[in-house]
């Protein structure tokens, strides 16, 4: 119950605080430069120069403290020792390059990066095309989209249940092994099956991300001008040709956006690996490796930060690409 009041009072204080700041600071500004009287024009001009910063102030403060400052602090820590007391130059990075677990993580992240965006986009495209003009298409879309709402941890439980293993010959309670056994194969411990276990983890993320890809791509498919499709059909194109030669090329831009968005999710993938294998049996990824160095045993903030910076470097190209796109738009 006290928890409840704590939450309620936080919302009240938070909301009240925000409103008080925005309203109060505006009020003060209007007092200092009243928009009437002899200097009204001049005052309004001055006030309008300051006002945007009042509106932006809290946001800039939060972004600065919670996202910008940490990047530089991580950079600083990555060239210092475990407790941040001594400058060690590039030795954390040098250590990373030689570390077997780090190389395994990089390799796995790379495979994730190739497989998950490709499969999610492909399935999303198929799902979008298949459901788009069906009568029950919207219900179908909802159901494919649904895993988006499920946490990675929840998805981990769901899929671990599917991969569950029982001795050969026993009643299998995991769906995958039940199917394998029904087809005459031997049940497997899928999550310890090196190197294929990586793919069984990737399946979980593909399952989650396909809905996202489908929603975006389906909107893009609907945006294709009818004439181009009709013209192709009149020229005798088969449905396959219409799809691959006419539709897909026209939504290439959207496919790229979907692909990069999923790429970013993949780079940061943590929960799925954390709860399903915890990086054992050759499934380590960067985000989980970093967590290990930060919180397991004796924390080593230097090495942990170095891994974080590597992650940051990996997303930087996408970041710059997005920023360039937006700047073009804003102008």
């Amino acid at each position: 119950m006290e928890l409840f009041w704590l939450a309620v009072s936080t919302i009240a204080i938070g909301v009240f605080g925000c409103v008080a700041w925005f309203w109060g600071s505006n009020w003060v500004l209007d007092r200092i430069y009243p928009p009437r009287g002899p200097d009204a024009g001049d005052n309004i001009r001055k006030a309008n120069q300051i006002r945007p910063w009042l509106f932006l102030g809290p946001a800039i403060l939060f972004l600065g403290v919670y996202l910008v400052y940490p990047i530089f602090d991580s950079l600083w820590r990555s060239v210092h020792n475990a407790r941040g007391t001594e400058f060690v130059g590039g030795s954390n990075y040098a250590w990373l390059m030689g570390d077997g677990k780090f190389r395994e993580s990089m390799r796995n992240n790379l495979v994730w990066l190739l497989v998950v965006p490709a499969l999610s986009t492909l399935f999303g495209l198929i799902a979008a095309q298949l459901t788009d003009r069906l009568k029950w298409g919207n219900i179908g879309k909802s159901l494919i989209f649904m895993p988006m709402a499920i946490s990675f941890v929840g998805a981990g439980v769901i899929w671990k249940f599917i991969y569950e293993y029982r001795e050969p010959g026993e009643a299998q309670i995991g769906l995958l092994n039940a199917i394998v056994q029904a087809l005459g194969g031997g049940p497997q411990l899928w999550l310890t099956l090196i190197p294929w276990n990586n793919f069984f983890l990737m399946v979980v993320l593909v399952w989650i991300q396909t809905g996202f890809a489908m929603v975006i791509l389906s909107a893009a498919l609907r945006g294709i001008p009818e004439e181009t499709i009709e013209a192709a059909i009149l020229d005798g194109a088969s449905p396959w040709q219409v799809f691959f030669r006419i539709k897909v090329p026209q939504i290439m831009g959207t496919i790229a956006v979907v692909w990069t968005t999923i790429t970013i999710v993949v780079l940061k993938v943590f929960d799925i690996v954390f709860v399903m294998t915890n990086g054992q049996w050759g499934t380590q990824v960067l985000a989980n490796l970093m967590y290990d160095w930060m919180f397991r045993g004796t924390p080593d903030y230097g090495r942990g930060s170095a891994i974080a910076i590597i992650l940051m470097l990996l997303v930087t190209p996408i970041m710059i690409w997005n920023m360039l796109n937006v700047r073009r738009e804003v102008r």
Partner: protein
Amino acid sequence: MEGMAGQKSSLVWAVNIAAFLLVLLWTIPTLGLLVSSFRDRDQILTSGWWQSFSAQEATGFVRTGTGDDAVQEDGLYVIEGTVLEEGQSLIGWGTRAREPAAFAPGDTTEIEDGWQLTVAADGTYRLTSPTPFEMRRGERIFVTTGAPARLTTENYNRVLTAEGLGRAFMNTLTVTIPATVIPILIAAFAAYALAWMEFPGRAILTAAVVGLLVVPLQVALIPLLRLHNDLGIGKGYLGIWLAHTGFGLPLAIYLLRNYMAGLPREVIESARVDGATEFQIFRKIILPLSFPALASFAIFQFLWVWNDLLVATVFLGNTREQLVMTGVLRELMGSKGGEWEILATSAFISIAVPLLVFFAMQKYLVRGLLAGSVKGG
């Protein structure tokens, strides 16, 4: 696809079937969890969830009575009893563990020295011997029984009370609501400034917000944890609210700015001409008109905070009282990996609220996705 010329009906069928299979494939995993969460704990472990609605077969053994229970009848020593429990039916029985269904109900077999064992279909057995029984422990009768499928809500009771999920549910709610409401307010003002106010540096700020969208959270963990410790916030709700607010802001600002920038210019210009202050324009015109975008972001942030494990683990602490639901779930996966009735039920409780929100507000979610598909989760 009615608009298409040259459309074959076989293709329509193929599309319907393919779509159905795809939907099935995407739904079954969750369905399995849902069904399992209502199953009896023994039944979960002995049969797949897809069999939960048919009778459950199980094997086991019962011991007969001992020499003390024997009665004399027509010169024979007889022990009688039943091998079944309430609600079970007998499928087969045997005298060796390897063959728990060697005999059909009603069969009679000789065990040793003239001992005769009969198990009837109603489960009653009759063991007879020409000489007195001398065994201390009863003979084992192996039985294969069928029990009706049992679906219960017992798991939910147990998980919510004994496993501490009720507490975790409250914790999650406490984390989620302020962490959803506060960024909206801050972002709305910032988005308005970026969309409708003229000032130097606007384009750069907008680009910076977009850039910050993809910053990996991992980069922020160590520095912020240290910062919170130095500021005396430490681990707790305040820290996690602040962290989620910070992490959610780029998406919030980006979504709201895009939406607000698309609002009709004339409305805002005419309000300015009429002498409305920027604050009034924001409150009376922009906020009400931006409701769809506000709703979109609220859903995103709600789902993201509710489902988050990493930020909660780092900023909230890991004692039993502090865990959020994803944290409890993770702990259960480690400690109760084989107890699927607990795992399935806990997982389902933790995903029930997001699923409700998802199905109720899907329209806004889709709209938000389409408006802000640069963000990476």
